[in-house]
């Protein structure tokens, strides 16, 4: 067995040696070649049978004696009958032929396949071969396609490529001796096509690849002669990308493209483009080294089709496949007719379609522009009148057929091209169904009906975001102002998240993703990010998609942590502090954020429309504050809110309101004002006195009165108190020359500190200091009372004014007024036709003086009659 293996290996090496020594490898050409396999008994030179191929070219095979195998039948198919014994394969191309020397055929050795073929009437077979290095410089590919596919229709094809890499070209002969050939299985098809792929390490691109193909098909086995190729010399780039055509400013056609990304060396490009009108088809084929070609001036109404391929600029290489063709059609005449006119072209006379009945036409480039408000845009136009291109000097521009554009905005780019520029364009205001401004290029006041369309969209969209108080959700909003958008455009928020923070200047990021946003009832779109990266920078912008393209709003970058709207403070409580009488508010800070917070309080009286007052809490560490309030005995409503101390983010909502309870906070501010009614005979010494007082208001009682206490003081009995409960009058017996009484108000805190007192004195009651008194009614609700005091030195505490309607059985009414006043406006309900009694009591510290009493308002003209005095 070992001996058998050794023998096989030896034979294999011998075979390779013979192949290498006597049959130099066929150099793979970048342009493809043909593998012809013929019956052994045919000796015709295959190349001689092919038009355009010289049999002399066989010398290119390295001087090897061409195996002039006869082939080709008379019909021109590359098919010949193979002998049942053997077939012989050769390469040939336009550059030459390579056939291996049939060494040792006589001795029965075979360098080429021998076929025992049942097909056998033994047809010769031709494959078109092409080998190239793929553009990514990783795979070497050889593919073959039979010229006569029908021969393989009923057979499976199997192909194998045997290859070896030699380090240097001069080693190519020795390479097979150094190591064996490796084989790769090739893909084969029933049509006889096959493709073999050989991985080539990057470091071996300059090595020489020796190889041969073994094909089993149609009942036969065919083996190619040895081929050689340096992968770097047969690189086939990927086709150029993004073929683009546009009209340049001066009216030429610029064809541009991008070179394939993986091209390892400079490329040259072959461009084919055709100008196609209804009458002429002009084809141009140019080779350039830059990825652009400036073609001739563009004509209206023509279509231009272009495609491009690439190949290594310097040195050998394989042309790439052609790019996908691109068609560009210029504006022109709609509904072209059979009648044609000549159009004068600047460089040559060309025929392009123009209907004779439409004697004018205009071409705008670009015909439509979509742009954002605030940008600058330009249109160009070529205008033809009758049979001549109108000189660009004669062109004027209009907007919407209503507004002539100032000449300063346009100028002649060339003899036939005029250019208008709009600076700082405003957003288009849709007029009915027209969502663009129509821009006209005219000759004086003669305009063609065609126009260019200018779409301007205001993309200055403010995106605002807010992070919720739980720090888990960021809600971003932007206005869907219908005036801003154009019909047919859609809006979408795009964003990019950077790991931490925002950069100084927000910019559109190449890696971004759209975010679903939903229109709210308030006309805003709302997008929610949840969960969030608190410290990441979210760069966001709005992309407006329109049929003419897309526009992006200026990007804005937001860090969620900087737009937090905290939860409102919790557990808010409010109270009026006892004795101190301040409104005290306490609260708890929300759990989030953990930043230092500032707090704001607002407070007011509870009611339907609370008038709020605000209070800033100065100490950020405190969780309570006290504010002075005027009314201590009413219910106060209090709310608290917070925000970050560094003012980043938003104020929280106000907390739910807390209310104060009305309780006594201090002793009553004063005792009640009181007066007396003296009953009984005035001539008697002992009389009943009834004290009268008004209930204390809350503002004086702070905040309630539980009871009133009357304090008596006489010379004989000293001091004693009498509880009046919650009554507002109390009667006592005045039996001593001087009797002083004080009325105190008592609440839960204590008794009023400032109290009024009144002394009833027999001697003082005879002191008369009021010289005169007059009552002057102003109207039914006001009477002026004025008086004059007798001259003298006495210490008046105050006055008491007392009045009553003598015609009615009313209670007396009274007022305490300061001692300094000389007249007083009494506001009450007065009936002028009735009689009133007015009394003025001087009150001394020693007692109540003698009053001055008048009657007023007699029935006739009471308002103008002065009251008579008495007493």
């Amino acid at each position: 067995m070992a001996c058998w293996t050794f023998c096989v290996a030896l034979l294999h090496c011998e075979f390779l040696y013979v192949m290498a020594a006597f049959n130099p490898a066929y150099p793979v050409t970048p342009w493809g070649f043909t593998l012809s396999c013929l019956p052994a008994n045919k000796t015709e030179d295959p190349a001689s049978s092919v038009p355009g191929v010289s049999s002399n070219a066989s010398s290119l095979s390295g001087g090897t004696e061409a195996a002039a195998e006869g082939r080709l039948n008379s019909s021109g198919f590359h098919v010949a009958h193979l002998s049942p014994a053997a077939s012989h394969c050769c390469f040939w191309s336009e550059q030459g032929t390579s056939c291996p020397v049939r060494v040792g055929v006589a001795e029965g050795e075979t360098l080429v396949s021998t076929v025992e073929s049942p097909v056998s009437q033994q047809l010769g077979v031709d494959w078109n071969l092409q080998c190239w290095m793929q553009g990514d410089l990783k795979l070497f590919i050889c593919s073959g396609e039979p010229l006569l596919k029908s021969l393989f229709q009923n057979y499976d094809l199997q192909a194998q490529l045997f290859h070896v890499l030699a380090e240097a070209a001069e080693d190519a002969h020795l390479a097979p001796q150094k190591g064996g050939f490796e084989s790769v299985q090739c893909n084969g098809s029933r049509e006889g096509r096959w493709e073999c792929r050989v991985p080539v390490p990057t470091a071996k691109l300059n090595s020489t690849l020796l190889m041969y193909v073994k094909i089993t098909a149609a009942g036969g086995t065919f083996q190619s002669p040895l081929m050689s190729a340096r992968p770097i010399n047969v690189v086939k780039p990927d086709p150029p990308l993004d073929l683009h055509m546009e009209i340049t400013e001066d009216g030429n056609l610029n064809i541009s493209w991008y070179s394939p990304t993986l091209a390892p060396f400079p490329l040259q490009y072959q461009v084919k483009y055709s100008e196609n009108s209804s009458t002429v088809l002009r084809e141009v084929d140019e080779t350039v080294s830059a990825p652009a070609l400036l073609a001739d001036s563009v004509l209206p109404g023509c279509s231009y089709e272009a495609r491009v391929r690439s190949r290594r600029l310097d040195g050998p290489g394989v042309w790439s496949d052609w790019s996908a063709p691109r068609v560009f059609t210029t504006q022109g005449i709609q509904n072209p007719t059979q009648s044609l006119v000549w159009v004068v072209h600047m460089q040559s006379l060309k025929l392009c379609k123009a209907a004779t009945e439409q004697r004018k036409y205009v071409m705008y480039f670009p015909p439509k522009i979509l742009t954002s408000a605030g940008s600058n845009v330009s249109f160009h136009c070529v205008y033809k009148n009758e049979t001549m291109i109108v000189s660009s000097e004669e062109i004027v521009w209009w907007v919407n057929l209503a507004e002539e554009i100032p000449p300063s905005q346009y100028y002649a780019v060339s003899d036939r091209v005029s250019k208008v520029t709009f600076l700082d364009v405003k957003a288009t205001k849709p007029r009915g169904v027209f969502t663009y401004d129509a821009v006209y290029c005219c000759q004086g006041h003669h305009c063609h009906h065609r126009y260019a369309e200018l779409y301007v969209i205001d993309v200055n969209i403010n995106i605002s975001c807010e992070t919720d108080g739980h720090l888990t959700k960021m809600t971003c909003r932007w206005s869907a102002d219908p005036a801003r958008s154009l019909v047919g455009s859609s809006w979408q928020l795009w964003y990019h998240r950077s790991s931490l923070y925002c950069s100084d200047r927000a910019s559109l990021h190449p890696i971004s993703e759209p975010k679903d946003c939903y229109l709210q009832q308030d006309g805003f779109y709302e997008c929610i990010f949840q969960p969030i990266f608190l410290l990441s920078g979210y760069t966001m912008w709005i992309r407006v998609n329109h049929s003419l393209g897309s526009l992006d709003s200026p990007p804005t970058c937001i860090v969620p942590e900087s737009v937090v709207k905290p939860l409102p403070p919790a557990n808010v409580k409010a109270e009026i502090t006892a004795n101190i009488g301040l409104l005290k508010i306490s609260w708890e800070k929300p759990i989030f954020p953990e930043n230092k917070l500032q707090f704001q309080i607002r407070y007011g009286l509870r009611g339907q429309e609370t008038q709020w007052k605000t209070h800033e809490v100065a100490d950020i560490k405190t969780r309570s504050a006290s504010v002075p309030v005027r009314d201590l005995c009413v219910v106060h409503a209090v709310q608290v809110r917070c925000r970050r101390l560094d003012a980043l983010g938003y104020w929280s909502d106000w907390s739910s309101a807390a209310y104060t309870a009305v309780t006594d906070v201090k002793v009553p501010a004063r005792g009640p004002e009181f007066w007396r009614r003296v009953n009984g005979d005035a001539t008697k010494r002992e009389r009943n006195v009834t004290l009268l007082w008004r209930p204390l208001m809350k503002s004086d009682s702070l905040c309630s009165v539980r009871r009133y206490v009357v304090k008596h003081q006489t010379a004989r009995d000293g001091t004693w108190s009498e509880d009046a409960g919650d009554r507002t009058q109390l009667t006592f017996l005045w039996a001593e020359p001087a009797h002083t009484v004080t009325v105190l108000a008592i609440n839960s805190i204590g008794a009023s500190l400032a109290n009024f007192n009144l002394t009833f004195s027999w001697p003082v009651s005879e002191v008369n200091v009021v010289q005169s008194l007059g009552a002057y009614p102003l109207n039914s609700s006001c009477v002026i009372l004025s008086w004059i005091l007798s001259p003298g030195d006495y210490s008046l505490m105050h006055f008491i004014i007392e009045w009553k309607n003598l015609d009615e059985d009313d209670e007396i009414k009274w007022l305490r007024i300061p001692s300094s006043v000389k007249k007083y406006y009494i506001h009450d309900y007065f009936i002028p036709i009735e009689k009133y009694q007015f009394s003025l009591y001087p009150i001394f510290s020693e007692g109540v003086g003698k009053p001055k009493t008048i009657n007023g308002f007699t029935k006739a003209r009471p308002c103008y009659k002065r009251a008579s005095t008495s007493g």
Partner: protein
Amino acid sequence: MRCGPLCQFLWLWLYLSYIQAVPIQKLQGDAEILIMTIISRINIISHMQPVPLKHKVSGFDFIPLHTDLSLSKIEETLAVYQQIIINLSSQNKMQISNDLDNLRDLIRMIASSKGCPLPYNRSSATLQNLRGPLRDSVFSTEVVALSRLQRFLKEMLLQLDVSLMC
């Protein structure tokens, strides 16, 4: 879009140059706030009651317990915790994971501004041991993991006030 790689590079360069300019005081301040935020998030998880220190629960050797508080070790530990948190069923787990992600970035930036030789690439912890406990004792895993994380963060918070070594 064809300038993709170049644009990305330029953008990254601009971004990194900005990041370099962030003062370390801000980084440390933000780290402190973020740590406190995570601690509070764990606090409000309803079933979370810290496991007493002397209480030992077996089977969780893969959850870091006592960690050297150097910057590189912190980053590594946070990566482990992040991996664990993602696999829990707890509410807010994704939010806590995101917070940890931000915190790791902050630690890396602090390390960078201190000139610490932290590996350029973020550590990515893979926890083979997590699957079993998660399947058999979800509750224990959650409580132990969150407790230990909280404890780790508190220690880290204390250390931030002093100084963190490389």
